[in-house]
């Protein structure tokens, strides 16, 4: 599991690369919650290079989203591949996340609020 981190205005863009499963989910969770603790509250997760996700990975996104509602923050997920999107759809979780087809589109989700 690899990360990249980038910032555009007030939005932190986290790029995930590899597999988000029970073996790697904890590392991702620490990364996401670490960003929130650091005071970031607009997180965009770019999943273009995320090959795989299990329920352990979904739980990280749920935990991150929950934490962000407490800080009035916002989480947007972008560019999910078809396999990963299917996991969100099967669990009904797609409907509670903002999922964007592209990074650019995801960034506009924050501008609408600003």
């Amino acid at each position: 599991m690899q990360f990249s981190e980038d910032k555009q205005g007030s939005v932190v863009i986290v790029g995930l690369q590899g597999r988000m499963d029970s073996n790697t989910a904890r590392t991702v969770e620490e990364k996401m919650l670490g960003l929130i603790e650091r005071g970031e509250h607009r997180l965009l997760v770019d999943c273009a290079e995320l090959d795989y996700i299990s329920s352990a990975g979904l739980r990280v996104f749920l935990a991150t989203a929950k934490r962000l509602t407490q800080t009035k923050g916002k989480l947007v997920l972008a560019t999910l591949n078809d396999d990963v999107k299917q996991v969100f759809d099967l669990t009904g979780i797609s409907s509670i996340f903002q999922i964007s087809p592209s990074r650019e589109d995801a960034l506009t989700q924050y501008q609408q609020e600003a």
Partner: protein
Amino acid sequence: MPAPLMIAITNDLAEIEPLSQVINEFIARQQLPAKLAFELNLALDELLTNTISYGYEPGQTGQTIYVRGVLADGFIILEIEDGARAFNPLAMSEPDLDAALNERPIGGLGIYLVRQLMDEVTYQRRAGKNLLTLKKAIPEYRTKET
């Protein structure tokens, strides 16, 4: 009909990824879609994660878990056999998928996914082992009829 799969792993979450590569290769060799491999791997991952995370005593490492696979006419059967404590994951209650984010309990999604991905999932406790059998229809896989 291809030779059955027989893979032994130990009770370590890090073994799930290499297992998935074996499954990917098996599915690719049969010229079946990569999407099928993804679904089989996800179901195996969820069930193995459960048993590896909760089935053993702390420090009880190096325990063997067997994964077997058989491709037959129009379906695939996978079996997981472990010597962990008796546990039937299918007896877990279904998650409330309509719950709002703040009421949503974190967890319970794994088994739900397995049921969604597979056509049939059964559990047996046999000779001190947990035996999970997963069956999935593969309409595109037919052995030649002559």
